[in-house]
């Protein structure tokens, strides 16, 4: 979803309250979201962290005598093996590490750049504000997939360019959100009084504006890790993402497609892995949004 709709549930009245004083979510569904989200993300992160210990070969060892073994038959290969006899579970664990790496680094980069620019521009307004809003307009006309198509066609696929492209296309979302937060916060009494007693602009932005703008930015960050894992896997799936010789979720799905008639597990399990971790992150982001905005939930 677009960032303006993502942040729109946020109301100014709640900003003053510190997180600890917020009432807990009322509805049962909200806490179910938190529990399910934590389980899904926790299980996947746990699997990824343990993969070095569980699968010392990183899912690379091939065993042509054990090609396309169905799942749940061999305790050595609980999720079966792929056309080259590699363990599907091990490859899911290793591929998950790469997906998470792309998701977290791209979001961290975009958030840092975007928040900084958005806060400064929203606080000082002026020409920078105008320039930012025009960049937002341009960004809307060049969605990520189309931008990625152009740049990857020229520079070739790879992990670094993928992360750079994700940052380049998404920093604007954080900038726009931080800008609108800064614009409303600069009119508030505590910021006005800080200015009146002579606190410098940079210090106001960092100590008074940023902490109060952090909530919606955090929600956007969580949801965008999910989005970026989806974008990374779809680009890898069509051959424009991560190197196909490395285990990755999109790559496994691309390989498995050929065997869809005979070996469903090669395409079903990596897809489920994506679905679970992205769903987990979306649940957590959704829960976080409601948690930070008690007025939006009734």
């Amino acid at each position, binding site marked *: *979803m*677009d960032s303006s*709709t993502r942040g729109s549930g946020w109301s100014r009245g709640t900003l003053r309250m510190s997180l600890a004083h917020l009432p807990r979510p009322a*509805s049962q*569904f909200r806490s179910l979201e938190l529990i399910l989200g934590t389980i899904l993300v926790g299980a996947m992160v746990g699997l990824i962290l343990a993969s070095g210990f569980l699968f010392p070969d990183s899912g690379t060892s091939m065993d042509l005598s054990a090609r396309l073994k169905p799942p749940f038959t061999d305790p050595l290969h609980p999720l079966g093996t792929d056309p080259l006899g590699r363990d599907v579970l091990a490859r899911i664990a290793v591929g998950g590490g790469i997906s998470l790496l792309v998701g977290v680094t791209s979001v961290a980069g975009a958030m840092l750049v975007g928040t900084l620019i958005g806060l400064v521009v929203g606080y000082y307004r002026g020409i920078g504000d105008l320039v930012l809003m*025009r960049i937002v*307009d*341009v960004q*809307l*006309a*060049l*969605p*990520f*997939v*189309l931008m990625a*198509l*152009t*740049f*990857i*066609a*020229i*520079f070739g696929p790879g992990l670094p360019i993928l992360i750079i492209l994700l940052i380049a296309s998404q920093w604007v979302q954080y900038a726009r959100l931080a800008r609108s937060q800064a614009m409303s916060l600069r009119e508030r009494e505590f910021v006005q009084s800080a200015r009146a007693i002579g606190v410098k602009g940079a210090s106001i932005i960092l100590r008074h504006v940023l902490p109060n703008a952090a909530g919606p930015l955090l929600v956007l960050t969580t949801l965008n890790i*999910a989005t970026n894992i*989806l974008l990374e*896997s*779809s680009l890898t*799936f*069509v051959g*424009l993402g991560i190197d196909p010789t490395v285990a990755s979720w999109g790559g496994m*799905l691309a390989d498995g*497609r050929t065997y*869809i*008639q005979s070996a*469903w597990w090669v*395409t*079903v399990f990596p*897809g489920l892995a*994506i*679905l679970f971790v*992205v*769903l987990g992150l*979306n*649940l957590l982001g*959704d829960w976080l949004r409601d948690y930070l905005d008690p007025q939006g939930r*009734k």
Partner: protein
Amino acid sequence: MATFLLKRVFLALFVIVAVTLLVSYTIRLSGDPATMLMTGGQANFTAQDLERIRASLGIDRPFLVQYALYMKDVLRGNFGTTFFGRQPVNQLLGRALPATLLLALTSLAGSLLISIPLGIYAAVHRGSLIDQAIRFFSLVGLSFPNFWLAIILVLMFSVTLHLLPPSGFFTAAGLVLPAVTLALILSAINVRLVRAVMLETLSMQYIAVARSKGLRESVVLYKHALRNGMIPLLTYVGLQFGDLLGGTVIIEQVFNWPGMGSLAFEAISARDYPILQGVITVFSVLIVVVNLLIDIAYGLVDPRVRVE
């Protein structure tokens, strides 16, 4: 209204120039087309050959002049010729664009058919079990990789049930699976938008008035609330249009649908950049124009929008 129109059109033109400039510049970074052309064709060539080709392609001039000439041609509907085969690019675009638009618009219509009734139901029965179920399933839909959903649908309806062709058929039956895939993914977002928009309009006073007049609930919902809710909904649909085209590009790959996405991937693997440039240019102009039209329609229907 005139100032509003003028402002919008001017902004749209600015965005089109900025995007096409960026794309043209990036494409130029790919290297010297003349060298690529020669190494792709004959084995031995001289420096004079290169110069001759550069002049014939017009790439011996400064970048901005080339860009201006390209855009002048584009305005006349001429997107240049392909590197390999020297075919007019507009012929390829003319064949691919209708296929993509057919897929994208069918998916959009399908998703509205799913999400409008569900969203209204969720808004009216806010907080109910079904509302929460819709909310959960929309989150699941948002978390589905679209290409994986496509594969799963193929597995179910083509491989197992033999009901529909798996791919590569530019027919009504071939349209079903890619359109359903995209429609389902889109619905996940749209159902939330419809719900939010309906909650907003249903809290308005004219709805209370309509109800107190004794109008039937269906008339209140569909005639009074939905009609007013359609305006912000349309804006969101416009903002989504780019992502819809992006999704179409990926899904076309799964089903071998002969649209702009497939054309772009052929161009990328053949390194035939005039085709790629044509595809991206058409897409971004399309996105800007759709949003411009929605903006103008919005301004016509709702006078408050005209004064910012």
